[in-house]
């Protein structure tokens, strides 16, 4: 599989790391081991001593970008969750890495402040933290990101689906088989029937359960359940069905 870096950019507390880890977990389910990088790790091991001036921030991202480029070149899937507020450095690492998917994690400032359990925004607003993105330092929105997720408007699942879909579209991720969610009533049906009866053909029964669900939930027939009931009534009135 070809390596790729999925780069999450956005305001502090916008949900970058959460989504990066969700993506990583989903990839693992599909048998793909991803490498996760975020500010906490790299500031500790890769960029210790760098501050939050524009120059230092750019240098931090440049170093992370270099690591990502190595991982990507060797076929790894890497998730990178960094505020990375400046367009110029993002453009630079995009160039460096090559196979690069930029995910703009969009979220309103109010929502980010609400989510900030560490109270960093509060400190920044009080002037206790300098150069804090969103308060005292700008965040330059991506102009052409591959994916935009809006974490104040959509669920994590929706955001994750968008990212996975884009990765599949770009060919960086093999398309997954369609997941079929089996609702509780069907699982109960399955368990109850399996416990109480002697089925000559278990695989066909499982197919039956799945197809029942699919037929109830697919839009292929263009006829709703309510319409089916109405058709049944009409046919009964004419004696066409029992």
């Amino acid at each position: 599989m070809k390596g790729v870096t999925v780069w999450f950019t956005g305001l502090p507390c916008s949900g970058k790391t959460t989504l990066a880890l969700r993506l990583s977990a989903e990839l693992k389910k599909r048998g793909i081991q991803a490498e996760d990088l975020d500010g906490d790790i790299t500031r500790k091991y890769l960029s210790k001593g760098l501050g939050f001036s524009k120059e230092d921030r750019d240098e931090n991202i440049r170093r992370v970008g270099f690591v990502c480029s190595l991982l990507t070149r060797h076929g790894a899937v890497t998730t990178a969750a960094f505020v990375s507020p400046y367009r110029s450095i993002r453009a630079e690492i995009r160039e460096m890495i090559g196979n690069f998917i930029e995910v703009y994690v969009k979220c309103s400032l109010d929502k980010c402040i609400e989510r900030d359990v560490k109270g960093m925004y509060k400190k920044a607003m009080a002037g206790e933290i300098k150069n804090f993105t969103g308060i005292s330092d700008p965040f330059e929105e991506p102009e052409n990101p591959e994916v935009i997720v809006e974490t104040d408007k959509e669920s994590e699942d929706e955001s994750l689906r968008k990212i996975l879909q884009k990765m599949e579209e770009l060919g960086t991720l093999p398309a997954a088989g369609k997941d079929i969610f089996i609702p509780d009533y069907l699982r109960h049906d399955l368990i109850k029937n399996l416990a109480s009866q002697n089925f000559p053909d278990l695989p066909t029964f499982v197919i039956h359960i799945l197809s029942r669900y699919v037929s109830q939930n697919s839009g292929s027939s263009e006829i709703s359940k309510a319409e089916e009931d109405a058709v049944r009534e009409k046919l009964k009135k004419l004696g066409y069905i029992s």
Partner: protein
Amino acid sequence: MAREVSPIFKKKGKKLLIIGLDGVSHEMLAGNGQPSLFPNLKKFFAASTVKMSASIPEISAVSWSSFMTGTQSGNHGIFGFVDLTAGTYQYRFPNFSDLKAPTFFDELGLKNKHSVIINLPATYPARPIPGVLISGFVALDLEKAVFPASYIPILKQMGYQIDVDAGKGKDKKNEFLADLHCALKIRKQIADILWEKENWDVFMFTVTETDRLQHFLYDACGDSRHPFHREFNGFFNEVDQIAADFLQRAASCGDVEVVALSDHGFCPIKSEVYLNPILKKHGYLSMEKAEAKSLANISAQSKAFALDPSRIYIHQKGKYFKGGVTPADMQKIREDLRQLFENYEVGGEKILSRVYFKEELYSGAQMAAAPDLVLLSKPGYDLKGGLEKDRETGISHFSGMHRQDNAFFACSRGELISKPMTIFDVKGLLYKLLAI
């Protein structure tokens, strides 16, 4: 100011008018020694009217699908009003989007021919066609029954009814008759508009009320003492008048060929016959709970079950999750079932004309969904699945039933009619009439 000329008068080339009369038998049209209920149609077509075989089973969904595609269910995939979802015991109701073969109006569209199709059964939900489509039975929602959608407001404004409430046919017969007249009248009005407005090559007008009336009042047909005899005959005469109006218009348009047909005939009911109770009695079908009325409760020991009206399915292993019949046992069970039904009698009379194995009726890509046996009854024995019944035969409020061998076909060019004529032959004949 000169009156605007209808597009139909401007368009060159052969045109075709099709009049569909659901459930009208050849006898009803020809009269057979009695005055015809369709004197105008009879006179117009004169000797160019023949008996036609409908599909088997002889129900509108299958027969009209066979008419519009020119092929049998093994190709078009519509085997009945109801089927089971593959691999399950869950009922589903096939619709127009399940039709697997091309219709004549789709194919004619490829030749730049424009069709107006009004009230043709088995065309719901309406999809785009090269022309105009107003779906017929079992259409439900006008919003999904009309293409193009621009006609929906007009139909709504006119009070167009897709179908009448057949429930009234049982015990509110006067209301039922009034509804039939009203639905027919408005349908004709919308047809008049489309006739003038659309630049058509093929115009099809189908009357389904003829079927509804016969189900509930067939006994009024030949019985002058029946309280609804006059109303029954009067309704058919009204349909004949409408047909006559179309014929007259067609004649004034110039190069218009005309076809009239039904999808099946009709006959009086002697007895309803319930197939699932028969299968139960002879050990082919059992339920997990004796009182169960749904196929979902079929037992794993069951060897066969019936779906309306006359289709028998072997409870095969691998096809149904509780099925246990192996391929090695199939032929024996089919033969045994054929024998059982061929010999089945009601009041000392055998009730079936023939028991078909699937390969004797069907071929094509949809064979996997075909019933394993299909029964064709003798006139008067109305076959039904009847899973909920606790007896093998009975009577109900219905007085008329479909009949397979006495549909009719009539054509303005009688020399083109093949004999014996089947509903599968009609599509090819339409192309001949259009010189395609």
